[in-house]
């Protein structure tokens, strides 16, 4: 067993941010283990994406270009990864812990009878073993976890590692054939309802969130405007989602999304422990709340006690002025 593999997730011909983070984490692991770094690129019409993986730090690239791989289906991707890994015996297989990456690693690990550790936020090497630091108990504690023997299947959480930047390096992709024919696949993708155009919470560098303090669906207006001016994503507390003021996909917290932006602006959010679990690893936290005793101020770097309907528009105006928007 040797070598570090990174699965590069691509959507419509673009490598996803979380995969650029995974390959930069993989680059460091490969250096520590003294192993080559191999990128896996699966899809349809992915010649350019596969070649681009060299520029992101791969020493070798294995590509598979097939119509059955056009949409991500774990039933098509999983057997391909498991077969390749079974034949070539990598020591470490790494992916970003996106919905797709999570499914793929679970499939591959099951078929390889391998240990699997998800959601790494820190990776180290002891001997030939990768020590993964990951959140447990909904981010209330951390654990140092490792695979005791055999192939080490790992995933890393979004925004925990810097994204690899293209260097211009090139190489020759090794192309392999798909392992499951369309007629043997048990699923068909029959549609996609895109929510594209909005910034994804898990990828966002800046998140502006609203809580109970916004008072109703229309109260998210000024919060969304600030997010918009900053090019950030719109978040929400559980209370506002449960009240039906905003769709679930915006929920940050224990039963929503776990986020880790550079800047998190909490507007009218008291900061219940469940909300904190979803955003406490943000780099800088700003809290705006009427109640000086709100727990969110204990977590925040900067606080303003006041009416969010006055403070947030003032912030939006100030950012507009400074950013020339």
């Amino acid at each position, binding site marked *: 067993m040797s070598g570090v593999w990174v699965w590069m997730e691509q959507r419509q011909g673009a490598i996803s941010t979380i995969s650029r983070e995974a390959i930069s984490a993989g680059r460091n692991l490969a250096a520590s283990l003294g192993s080559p770094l191999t990128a896996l690129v699966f899809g349809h019409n992915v010649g350019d994406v596969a070649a681009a993986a060299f520029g992101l730090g791969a020493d070798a690239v294995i590509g598979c270009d097939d119509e059955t791989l056009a949409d991500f*289906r774990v*039933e098509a991707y999983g057997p391909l990864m498991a077969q390749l890994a079974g034949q070539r015996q990598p020591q470490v297989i790494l992916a970003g812990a996106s*919905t*797709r990456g*999570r*499914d793929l690693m679970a*499939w591959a690990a*099951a078929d390889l009878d391998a*240990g*699997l*550790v998800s*959601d790494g936020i820190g990776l180290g090497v002891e001997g030939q073993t990768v020590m993964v630091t990951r*959140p447990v*108990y909904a981010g*209330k*504690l*951390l*654990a*140092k*976890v*490792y*695979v*005791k023997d055999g192939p080490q299947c790992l995933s890393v959480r979004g925004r925990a590692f810097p994204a690899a930047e293209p260097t211009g390096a090139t190489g020759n992709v090794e192309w392999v054939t798909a392992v499951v024919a369309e007629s043997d696949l*048990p699923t068909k*993708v*029959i*549609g*996609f*309802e*895109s*929510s594209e155009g909005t910034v994804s919470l*898990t990828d966002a*560098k*800046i998140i502006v969130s609203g809580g109970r303090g916004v008072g109703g669906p229309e109260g998210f207006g000024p919060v969304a405007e600030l997010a918009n001016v*900053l090019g950030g994503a719109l978040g929400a507390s559980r209370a506002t989602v449960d009240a039906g003021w905003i*769709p*679930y*996909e915006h929920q940050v917290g*224990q*039963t929503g999304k776990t986020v880790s932006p*550079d*800047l998190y602006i909490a507007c009218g959010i008291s900061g*219940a*422990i469940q909300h904190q679990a979803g955003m*406490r690893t943000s780099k*800088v936290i*700003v809290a705006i709340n009427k109640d000086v005793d709100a727990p969110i101020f204990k977590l*925040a*770097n*900067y*606080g*303003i006690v006041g009416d969010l309907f*006055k403070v947030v528009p*003032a*912030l939006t*105006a*100030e*950012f507009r002025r*400074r*950013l020339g928007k």
Partner: protein
Amino acid sequence: MKVVVCTKQTPSTTAVFTVRAGGSVSWDDPGGKPNVVNPWDEYAIEEAIRLTEKQGGTAVALTLGTEASQEALKTALAMGCHEAILVSDGAFEGADSLGTARVLAAAIRKVGGVDVAFFGKQAIDGDTGQTTVQVARQLGWTPLTFVSAIQAIDPAAGTITVARLLEEGKQIVTARLPVVISVVKEINEPRYPSFMGIRKANRAVIPTWTAADLGLNSSGSKVDWSNVFALPARESKVEMIEADSVEEQARILVDRLFEEKVI
């Protein structure tokens, strides 16, 4: 049709944790209920019950855990599941996700004739979200993860159509039964247990299946989880921005955020 819902007893969302020297973890809850049904599983239980209400048949709740996990199963029964089974054996302690999947798959096989096995999207203790796919692999069934709606199901034709909530939108997929499904919160609004349901659940005798009952020696585990520790405290101390006007507060705060290089 026959539906299984796998559920787990976890610390409550408001639980406060203590890590002792040596790494043992304990928790307590200010509300006095330190253990609950894994919050994500409530949506799976609800969906399992709704499916049998629409299609007829039985919903069986299944939990791998200690005797204390009977509480989670009683909640599932009180909500409306028809049967509950506890899978419990010292040989299953410390199982990793694949070990857990092996045990649950063996139990689902033993239940027999199952069309759909439901899971919550993840458990809030281990937080791995991997078990659904791994159970599906053990059974040779199709996994459908992060499901936000069952759009159609036809047990006679053996087909199902679901919407899956991915990062950038919803993927609509058809699959052949049987399937293993994990659900997200958007799928439904879980009901509260009824008074009659609670009475029924309290009287229920829940069978326990052991390793021997499932024909297993142990779950197996390739992952070492023993080193758990507390989070480093956030180093920052809050700076309250105070000024005579909100415009001035905004100006000061924006200055700080540019200095922090987060804009």
